[in-house]
């Protein structure tokens, strides 16, 4: 009568296709990097500077007409995208205009924004502008920097914590899994050209937090089993540990994905990119804690010399 996503007793060999899984991860990472470097990310104004204007109209959005209306203002590169959302009714037609940062200006003067709004009203006099946001080039540069700093600092902090609680091999494994998740997320953002802004960085950091959560649970069990089964080969202990925690891994990822799915479908278009990043990251993060983190630990090997029982606490065995 219980819903069981995973049979209560599993004995799967997660290393059977170790080459395949690690290979697939490597290929995916390289592909992501190539995409990132060739196609690039669709940075929002948080990172590029500039202005975005959200328009709402009862008439169907005619991108060409919008463009023709604002072109004479000579504001340089303007990108216009129509926003689709299942929660919008037929009388709600939303578009986003992005105007690049203007030469020599910290922020857009109100007259410019008024001029743009006037111009757009020639297309539809009833048009409304529910949000207008401008970020100057100075701030946008700093935002990139702090965002990168945040991602880097989190990784270092996690590396250090795991090193303290486990052993350095686990740290390396966990960080490898994190880098894997972050790179793959950047890859999907390049591929689908989803807007990459400050909220996306928050999502990236959540992915890091979630993925590490997942990895630590498996590591924790592994540590326990390493003490319990002193003679078993490392590979078998690892398989056992993953099998034992598999039900939990699937349950937790399942509930989280379920919750995110609701947000993805119903949360509105404003946070969709953000939610998508987390959604994707949880899939990738779950995969990486099972197939990347511990595989790296296996490659590095773990020091299993019997420990001095006097010093046998969690800080023992740090051989760095």
């Amino acid at each position, binding site marked *: 009568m219980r819903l069981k996503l995973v049979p209560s007793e599993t004995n799967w060999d997660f290393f059977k296709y170790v080459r395949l899984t690690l290979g697939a991860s490597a290929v995916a990472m390289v592909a992501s990097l190539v995409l990132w470097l060739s196609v690039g990310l669709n940075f929002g104004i948080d990172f590029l500077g500039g202005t975005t204007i959200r328009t709402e109209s009862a008439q169907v959005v005619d991108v060409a007409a919008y463009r023709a209306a604002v072109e004479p203002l000579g504001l340089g590169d303007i990108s216009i995208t129509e926003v689709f959302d299942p929660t919008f009714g037929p009388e709600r037609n939303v578009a986003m205009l992005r105007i690049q940062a203007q030469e020599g200006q910290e922020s857009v003067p109100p007259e410019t924004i008024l001029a743009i709004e006037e111009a757009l009203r020639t297309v539809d006099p009833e048009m409304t502008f529910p*949000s207008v946001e401008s970020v100057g080039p100075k701030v946008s540069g700093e935002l990139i920097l702090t965002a990168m700093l*945040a991602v880097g600092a989190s990784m270092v*902090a996690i590396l250090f914590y795991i090193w303290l609680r486990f052993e350095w091999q686990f740290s390396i494994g966990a960080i490898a899994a994190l880098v894997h998740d972050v790179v793959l997320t950047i890859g999907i953002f390049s591929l689908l050209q989803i807007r990459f802004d400050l909220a996306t960085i928050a999502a990236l950091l959540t992915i890091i937090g979630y993925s590490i*959560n997942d990895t630590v649970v498996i590591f924790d069990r592994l540590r326990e089993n390493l003490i319990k089964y002193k003679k078993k080969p490392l590979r078998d202990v690892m398989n056992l540990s993953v099998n034992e925690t598999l039900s939990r891994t699937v349950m937790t990822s399942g509930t989280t994905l379920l919750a995110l*799915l609701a947000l993805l479908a119903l949360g509105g278009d404003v946070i969709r990119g953000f939610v998508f990043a987390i959604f994707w990251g949880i899939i990738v993060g779950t995969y990486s804690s099972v197939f990347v983190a511990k595989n790296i630990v296996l490659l590095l090997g773990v020091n299993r010399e019997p420990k001095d029982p006097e010093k046998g606490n969690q800080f023992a065995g740090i051989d760095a």
Partner: protein
Amino acid sequence: MLQIPLWKRVLIWGVVLIGLSYALPNAFYSRVETHNDAAALVEAGAAETGEIAADLGQWPAFLPSSLVNLGLDLRGGAHLLAEVQVADVYADRMDAFWPEVRDALRDARDTVGTIRRQDSPPDQLRVRISNPEEITRAVAIVRGLAQPIVSFTGVGQDDIEVSFEGADLIIELSEAEKQATDDRTLQQSLEIIRRRVDEAGTREPTIQRQGEDRVLIQVPGIASASELKELIGQTARLTFNPVVSRTSDPDAPPGPRNIVLPSIDEPNTYYVLEQTPVVSGDQLTDAQPSFDQNGRPAVNFRFNPTGARLFGDYTAENIGSPFAIVLDNEVISAPVIQSHIPGGSGIITGNFSVEESTQLAVLLRAGALPAEMIFLEERTIGPELGQDSIEAGALACLVALGAVLVFMMLSYGLFGVFANIALLLNIALIFGVLSLIGATLTLPGIAGIVLTIGMAVDANVLVFERIREELKTARGPARAIELGYEKALSAIVDANTTTFIVAAILFTLGAGPVRGFAVTLGIGIVTSVFTAIFVTRLLIVLWFERRRPKQIEV
């Protein structure tokens, strides 16, 4: 492990109750908001009219009444990030220092000779003496004017640095004094922005210093960032300067220590003014909108005693000469002084509308910004968009919650129900803590809560899975539950600590959306660990004590 002492049970339920009582007002948001607004009015000294009493009655006074602040993305409003041009102030400081230097050197005229102020970059004072061989003597005299700095960072340093170049003395602010000045400038700007925003009468504005020279201003409910900019972007620096001449050529050479400024309402008219004002708006004690004798809008003002004396003396000595009233480098008007004005009050007339005169009075009353501001970032979020986001977010949260509840019950049966109760309490606790600390809930913050819903079950899942495993070794249900909690604890602690580290880093380094997310994530982790480890366990123990089952199914 299955024995939980009474004091612990009381403590756990106590924390839950307090959390719930703080979360409760959010369930009656608009009523509590009306109550709070009325309470604020009473506190500000408003008479308790029937209407206010009715509003107060919307929410009982003995219950907590703090609400979760809704962020701009949820409620609509304007957001501005401004950079204060702190270096502007250096020029004023040097100008103000000039008379002192002049007087000191004049006393030593026998040795250093005559003195003359030279043109220089704005943050320097350059003075040429006619006896260059006595320059070191002049330097010593000016150095004698330096004041020690009273600040933690600048102890033992003077406020000015004096050097020389040929026959020129160069006087500058020292690094430590510049820093202290910057700090003061920013504090003052914050204060004045706060006063101006308060005059506009909006609810819960956020005005914060950010970093060395920035101010973050968030005002909910205002229609647009440009409106806010008009209010706080104006320096509102009022000065009264002697007029040298009138011209129609903006490039006319003004002569030393003079400036050319345009007239605000006469096109193609420029005034050549003495650069050093007679009196400035700093000396004002009051300004009120009014009308002049012809019934046109004007602004009445009143000086403090120092200002009144300066103004009185000058008007007495210069009857018949024009006198310019300058606001932010534009001449409002340049009336001719008719008579001595001794009382320290006066009237500014110009081509104002009633609205303009009211705004000018507000600006003058609030005081001038010490330096100009440049806006680096501005965001306007319309209230409808915010409302849409709240609705979408709330719906998504409910659906997510429902799905997780069903999923947990299907997976773990009765234990799933216990976990579900804990989860609901967890969400209430998050809102309770958010209200208690006055945090702001943003859209990414809602996403953080949804994520916590997903992750909060994790701790319970870890325990339940562990209990399942322990049941296999069949040592009785009590022992299995006990071991389940015991063994899952280290994984729960490690997993949540790492996530909490991420939340803490996000909070420290992040801005805007990142921070909003970090707040709910961090709080969510703490409350979910509490509910999973303590509340769920207490529920299981209570059930176990009552039923004493021989075997359990998890």
